[in-house]
């Protein structure tokens, strides 16, 4: 029983770490450009499929290479999607609705393209590291450890970027005060595209990391989108710290509810917690208005 609880906690932590990576990506776009990317789930799957493709080429058969190749591909993809699909809409009225619609169209396009190209059946990636760490009855797979390390690593890398690079500071500036950013000479449009690109990398990486454990399916991104959305709203849209806390809380909550009540109740429990939080704090845990 004790071991079971430890298992649950660890599972919660590991899932939480990946959720954190993806939630931060979503909250970043919202915080900086107030756009909502409905194709976020499809980008998650994109990461998985890119990795799948790379793995099928004998030369690229290891994770290090795959991650190093996938990241720039996702970055450039995200950048161009923003420039082509989102940026032109900013000047229109009702642009938030239009962005939701265009990204929804994109999601439709991508998900079904995956199905046509890769087939509807699940795909999986090889494990990063085979084997388990065993201590008595307690088993922890190295795969899970690697997932955790890479997720946390990704988040720390992102934090370093935000605080220590010029582009990072400009991202924070645009998020805090777009008018001020313009006054200071920061190219807002570039920042919008860059943040979108970064979030695409983050969620794509999440897709690659989790693909070794769960599978890649053409429509698998929707659950991820909803989860990332719930976490982001719970933590406060636009707040990175909030997103981080929320991700781990949700990871743990999911693990415990799933263990005690069964997996079908996790979604309901999540929404229940979300709704109660929003009732008390309409802006989420650490969100701000505006």
């Amino acid at each position, binding site marked *: 029983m004790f071991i079971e609880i430890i298992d649950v906690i660890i599972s919660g932590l590991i899932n939480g770490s990946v959720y954190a990576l993806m939630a931060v990506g979503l909250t970043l776009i919202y915080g900086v450009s107030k756009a909502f990317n409905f194709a976020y789930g499809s980008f998650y799957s994109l990461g998985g499929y890119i990795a799948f493709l790379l793995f099928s080429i004998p030369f690229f058969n290891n994770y290090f290479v795959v991650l190093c190749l996938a990241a720039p591909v996702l970055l450039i993809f995200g950048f161009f999607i923003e420039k082509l699909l989102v940026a032109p809409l900013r000047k229109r009225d009702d642009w938030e609705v239009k962005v939701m619609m265009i990204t929804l169209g994109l999601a439709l396009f991508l998900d079904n393209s995956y199905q046509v190209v890769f087939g509807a059946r699940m795909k999986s990636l090889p494990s990063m590291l085979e084997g388990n760490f065993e201590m008595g009855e307690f088993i922890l797979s190295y795969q899970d450890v690697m997932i955790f390390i890479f997720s946390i690593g990704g988040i720390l890398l992102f934090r370093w970027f935000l605080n220590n690079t010029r582009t990072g*500071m*400009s991202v*924070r500036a645009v998020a805090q005060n777009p008018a*001020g950013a313009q*006054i*200071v000479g920061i190219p807002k449009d570039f920042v919008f595209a860059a943040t979108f690109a970064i979030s695409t990398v983050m969620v794509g990486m999440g897709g690659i990391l989790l693909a070794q454990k769960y599978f890649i399916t053409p429509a698998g991104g929707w659950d991820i989108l909803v989860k990332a959305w719930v976490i982001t709203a719970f933590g406060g849209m636009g707040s990175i710290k909030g997103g981080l806390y929320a991700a781990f809380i949700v990871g743990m909550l999911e693990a415990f509810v799933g263990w005690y009540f069964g997996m079908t109740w996790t979604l309901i429990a999540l929404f229940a917690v979300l709704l109660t939080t929003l009732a008390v704090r309409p802006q989420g845990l650490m969100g701000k208005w505006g």
Partner: protein
Amino acid sequence: MIKVHDLNAYYDDFHVLKNVSLNVGKGEVVVMLGPNGHGKSTVLKSICGLVEKVTGNIIYDGENITGLGSEKLVNKGITYIAENRELFPEMTVLENLKLGAYSQSARPHERENLEKVFTLFPRLADRQKQLASTMSGGEARMLAIARGLMSNADFLAIDEPSLGLQPNLRDEVARIIKEINTQGITVLVVEQNIPQITELADKIYVLEEGMISFQGSKEEALGNDHLKEIFLGM
């Protein structure tokens, strides 16, 4: 330094500025007065690349800069200082200042400008690590001006620096503008009638209903009956 000719500016369909023309010579302090809501801020913002729909000609040191965005103009040495300050609330004073030096032309001079700014605003030096959102009105105003200076600008467009400040701080603001000007920066200030600042003016413009209704020296302004109405009306 800046020649504006037949400037028209629009916010969507609203015609804010109508054929505005003005000149700011290099090294001058020029003050623009006028009733609220008649477009004074828009003049400054248009010059600094912050207004979308602009027609006419804005010439800076012989170069036509009409319609260029703020990213390019800050790089050329033209900076706007907003009446709303528009600081970055969750960043420290130091971070705000550093962001002021974001543009390519300002970056190499960041350190020396930081020193200059701290000499000019010793209170800011004391509060380097303080968050911008916790500053008082006067301190925030100083920070906004300081941040503008970090851009290594040759031309500063300052929007109502005395707004909401107590009289003694207004003296401070005037002193700073004079000091900045002495260091070689050309200044175009929009203000209500604040004697300390109009005192500094080499030239005065008055903007009413989006059009220039008066231009001349301080003395000419004082002798003008219509302007007295505006002064009293404020």
